């Protein structure tokens, strides 16, 4: 195929033209600083608050509970580090899962170096957190439970409602990294007992460099980035007005089209899984078969290594990923795949394909075909495959 087939929407998405359109006036025309007093700039405050209101509504929150950040990572850092500070008189223990994004895991490691204690709860073979283990991990000093809404690699959706209830029963704050789930799944913070929620615009056809942290009213929270009085004195820094406006627009569209997108993506997802499973031997699908993001496919191919596969797919104009984009460059296989129990060599042979509504059946079929061809080729090169075949023979 001549056309590029983009199957890495969990890494980032195309900014919608309507979103760019909405942003444009805020660069060269309405460029004022929303904190300024004159009308020319203070109208931008309205634009910011409109976006905030769209976003608040999308998760059933109040407008004043949404704080803009520079992305999902900052929101995660904020939620964890600043909570610690505000609740340090109560305790120093955090509970999270083994399959969180590095924005959570590396932040937890940082906190551990600073005297905090973290329990990393296991997940089962489908990537679902072990609720009994989570319950047992609770101590009198536990001040926060942070469990992601849906996993970025294997797409597994966590039992957020149950976790929220456990947290509530024990009067522990509950944060969820919803960077992958937000605008892909319906979310209501009240129904799910979520106290804090992180999201990022560029995962839902919004611009890069903007995200938000939802903080339930009443939760004690300190600033993470100190300075000016922006965001109700909670997050300093001149507001990124164009990006905020674009985020609002992207959410508006994403919420309105969610059902339709989900249906289409699930259809394509199942088509891709079915094709590959039936045509390629020694392959498994990672993640929960039903409780998974509509657009997520994750395979492990035995005997081959993921990067080779990616490069060869790239040469066929197919954009995919072998784990989280942020960790490429690392030699270790994905911590998520290890956590669901895959041996190292299988984990290394994993491939993540994350679809969008823009993909076509034709693209999916072509992709399945290319996967088959390339996996075959790489297996011919593989000493592991050679050994396996000799043993089998």
């Amino acid at each position, binding site marked *: 195929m001549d056309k590029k087939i983009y199957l890495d929407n969990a890494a980032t998405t195309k900014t919608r033209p309507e979103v760019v359109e909405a942003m444009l006036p805020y660069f060269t025309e309405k460029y004022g600083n929303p904190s300024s007093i004159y009308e020319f700039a203070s109208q931008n405050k309205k634009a910011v608050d409109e976006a905030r209101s769209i976003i608040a509504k999308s998760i059933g929150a109040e407008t004043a509970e949404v704080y803009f950040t520079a992305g999902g990572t900052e929101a995660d850092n904020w939620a964890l580090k600043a909570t610690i500070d505000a609740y340090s008189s109560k305790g120093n223990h955090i509970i999270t899962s083994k399959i969180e994004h590095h924005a959570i895991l590396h932040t937890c490691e940082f906190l551990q170096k600073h005297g905090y204690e973290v329990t990393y709860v296991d997940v089962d073979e489908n990537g679902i957190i072990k609720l009994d283990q989570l319950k047992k991990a609770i101590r009198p000093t536990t001040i926060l439970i942070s469990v992601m809404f849906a996993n970025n690699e294997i797409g597994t959706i966590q039992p957020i409602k149950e976790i929220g209830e456990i947290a509530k029963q024990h009067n522990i704050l509950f944060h969820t990294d919803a960077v992958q789930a937000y605008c892909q799944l319906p979310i209501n913070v009240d129904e799910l007992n979520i106290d804090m929620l992180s999201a990022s615009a560029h995962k839902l056809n919004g611009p890069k460099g903007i995200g938000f942290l939802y903080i339930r009213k009443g939760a004690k929270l300190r600033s993470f980035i100190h300075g000016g009085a922006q965001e109700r004195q909670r997050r300093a820094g001149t507001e990124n007005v164009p990006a905020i406006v674009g985020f609002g627009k992207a959410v508006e569209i994403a919420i309105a089209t969610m059902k339709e997108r989900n249906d289409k993506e699930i259809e394509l997802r199942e088509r891709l899984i079915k094709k590959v499973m039936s045509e390629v031997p020694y392959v498994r699908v990672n993640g929960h078969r039903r409780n998974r993001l509509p657009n997520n496919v994750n395979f492990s191919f035995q005997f081959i290594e993921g990067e080779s596969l990616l490069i060869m797919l790239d040469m066929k104009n197919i954009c995919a990923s072998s784990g989280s984009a942020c960790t490429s460059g690392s030699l270790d296989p994905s911590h998520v795949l290890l956590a669901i129990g895959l041996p190292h060599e299988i984990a290394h042979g994993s491939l993540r394909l994350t679809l969008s509504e823009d993909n076509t059946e034709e693209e999916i079929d072509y992709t399945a075909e290319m996967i088959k061809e390339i996996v075959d080729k790489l297996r011919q*090169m593989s*000493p592991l495959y050679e050994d396996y075949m000799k043993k089998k023979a």
Partner: protein
Amino acid sequence: MYTEKVMDHFTNPRNMGEIENPSGVGTVGNAKCGDIMRMYLDIDDNGVIRDCKFKTFGCGAAVATSSIATELVIGKTVQEALQVTNKAVVDALDGLPKVKVHCSLLAEEAIHAALWDYAEKNNITIEGLSKPKDDVSEEEEEPEY
């Protein structure tokens, strides 16, 4: 990410495959770190490497370094082959990303492992060759948090 040379050797690997009844064969690396290389050598009575083939489980750089390594040793004597360093491999590929340099070490080690096997089979000692570790690791720059 990769040079043209690397991409060329990755997509059109030279000397990929097996040698039946090889003079020596060596496998290094491990699945844990995601790279396994196997080198087959066919060495004539004068100690000249007549043929060399490889199989590799690993990233693009691992495949490319295996491929170029076979080219670098074919036609060489055992002693000459021993001088093919990982640096020579990297240079022949016009460079490798820093995080991938360990692949070139692996290629060097794979050759050594195959030569060791050849030496053992023939009950000879090759000067300068010591029993290779079958795992190759390298100090990595530790990220600071």
